[in-house]
């Protein structure tokens, strides 16, 4: 599929594509409406929402490179916001999509990104109903930034939040960690690993909806994005004022990700994911929950990685591979490869 005329007359984004005139109108109609199927051209979308509790979230997406193994910025922009809604136990319905384009961006690139967004929205069962476009001068953006906001409905009766977590709860992970961060780093830094590491980006909404429909007593959900698994566990331990004990040997890590992390001196527990989440569920529901998670994770390696205990408030401990135990701390800032 290629970029449609008349956009093809403009192989690159011009400042005029954000200027409010004919070019911008063409871009919206031929690019965005064609991909997302909008009909109304009003200032705001009018939505039909069944009477219930709503969840709303927003996130901005900046990633370099725009395309990487297993995904791209458009897929992330849809899945990321869908997943944030899913983590609140909401069924995602509608997204907005705002684009900040850098003058000179290849129109073909924008086309590929919007098509990827269309596919991701379709897979997650959400509609992209409104949006915005701005163009910034060349050199003032990184090609393309996307912001999406999302609205979802909450159809179940219970609260899904850190304060619901109880001592004795099982800590579940829906699949192996570290793929996304390493896929992006490999592409950005031109690191050629023997085997291709693909981003794990995927929508988590179906998994969560199925967990809830099956009656699994879900206490808290959190996707393990920036900061990785270590950050998520620390956030929830602090908010729940409980201790979380994790067993390193049970955390699935793909051998290629493990090798890449070893070479660069990074800890897979600190590396970002885009299709992985931690679920705190009552211990008796853990086997059923894992079965459901494995139906949706292509690698089928969901695992119970630990247990919530009274212990000391906000602490996360990790049983090491050789039988020691240590604190699993929050990663601090930017991941920097070690010297040797």
């Amino acid at each position, binding site marked *: 599929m290629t970029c449609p005329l008349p956009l093809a007359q403009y192989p690159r984004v011009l400042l005029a594509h954000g200027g409010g005139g004919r070019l911008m109108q063409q871009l919206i109609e031929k690019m965005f409406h064609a991909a997302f199927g909008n009909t109304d051209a009003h200032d705001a979308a009018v939505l039909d929402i069944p009477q219930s509790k709503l969840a709303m979230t927003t996130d901005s997406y900046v990633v370099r490179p725009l395309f990487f193994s297993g995904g791209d910025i458009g897929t992330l922009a849809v899945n990321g916001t869908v997943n944030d809604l899913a983590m609140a136990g909401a069924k995602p319905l509608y997204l907005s999509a705002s684009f900040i384009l850098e003058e000179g961006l290849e129109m073909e690139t924008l086309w590929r990104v919007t098509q990827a967004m269309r596919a991701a929205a379709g897979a997650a069962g959400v509609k992209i109903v409104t949006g915005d476009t701005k163009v910034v001068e060349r050199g003032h953006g990184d090609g393309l930034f996307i912001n999406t906001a999302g609205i979802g409905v909450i159809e179940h009766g219970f609260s899904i939040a850190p304060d619901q977590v109880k001592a004795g709860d099982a800590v579940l992970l829906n699949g192996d960690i570290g793929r996304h961060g390493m896929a992006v780093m490999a592409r950005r830094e031109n690191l050629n690993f023997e085997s291709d590491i693909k981003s794990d980006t995927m929508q988590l909404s179906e998994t969560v909806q199925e967990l809830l429909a099956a009656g699994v007593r879900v206490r808290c959900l959190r996707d393990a994005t920036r900061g990785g698994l270590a950050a998520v566990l620390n956030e929830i331990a602090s908010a729940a004022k409980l201790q979380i004990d994790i067993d390193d040997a049970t955390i699935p890590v793909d051998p290629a990700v493990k090798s890449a992390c070893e070479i660069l001196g990074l800890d897979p527990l600190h590396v970002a994911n885009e299709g992985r989440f931690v679920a705190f569920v009552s211990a008796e529901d853990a086997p059923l929950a894992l079965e459901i998670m494995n139906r949706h994770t292509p690698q089928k390696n969901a695992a119970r990685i630990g247990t919530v205990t009274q212990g000391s408030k906000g602490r996360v401990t990790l049983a090491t591979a050789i039988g*020691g135990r240590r604190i699993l701390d929050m990663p601090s800032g930017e991941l920097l490869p070690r010297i040797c």
Partner: protein
Amino acid sequence: MKYLDEYRDADTARKYAAAIGDITTKPWTIMEVCGGQTHAIVRFGIEDLLPEKINLVHGPGCPVCVTPVEMVDKAIVIAALPEVIFCSFGDMLRVPGTKSDLLSVRAAGGDVRIVYSPLDAVAMARKNPEKQVVFFAVGFETTAPANAMAVHLAKTEGVQNFSVLVSHVLVPPAMESILSSPQNKVQGFLAAGHVCTVMGYKEYAPIVQKYKVPVVVTGFEPLDILQGLYMCIRQLEKGRAAVENQYSRAVQESGNMPAQELISKVFRVIPRKWRGIGEIPQSGWGLTAEYAAFDAEKRFDIAHAAREEPTECISGLVLLGQKKPAQCPAFGKTCTPEHPLGATMVSGEGACAAYYRYRKGEAA
């Protein structure tokens, strides 16, 4: 994973730990020299498996930690120059200089880039002939062959816009400095395996003879470290002092000869300042006259003002094995990985950062 999981096997680890327990009758203080070993010890909780009589102290072998503050300040001045692309290994970027760090220089518009090999920096110089490309050549003997190769390549290929800011240090003089201190507590060493892949281990023989301490060349995986400790404690218990090689899958006695030849062509031994410790004679490398044209310190006009390190920071004593991180009054309070007072809190290999990350909240 091949050659990784084998060295992290829980059953074998327990067997080694039991064997260490069996032969240990007296208290011993053993220093692992390399920051990579410190990192593995805390990351895998190795101390949990050892008898209480065994006290592990953490050595000066973290290149990021011992790079002196004035060298970081020089790097910051060079990196901020508009004509410069400044290349560094990742973890040098967060090391605090007197007032700033390289991450802040980058945020303020300096062109600071992370590279994975100094040869990438030479390639960058070729690609950007209008720029000055400077590589921050820090590290021990381990990183020296690649750094020497980069300079050699730039010279033979005439890449004139490439230079290196050299802050290379050497392991054996640091070990001697520790042993000759009146406050020394170290009774045995796990020598740094990767340093020995380059240099071999002949140079430890005089140290062993003079100070009567066992030195065991040791790898970096949990089982390497446990086996290295076993070999070291066995010597201590028998009253022996010899150089032994645990890391025989990677280290030969004479080391990597072609690498050593290149190093001795590009570098010469000079006195070097160590952060937190001070100057140690004959403890580092600088460029030889043949390659002096590639010295960033000569190419750029940089101030040579002596810098003071924060007085609260005891990183020097930590690096000498005389104190543990948690014995520092600033540890975890005014000094954290987000706001490090000393470099031992910065690098993942630094003892303070490793303790903070993995053992925070525990008693010293």
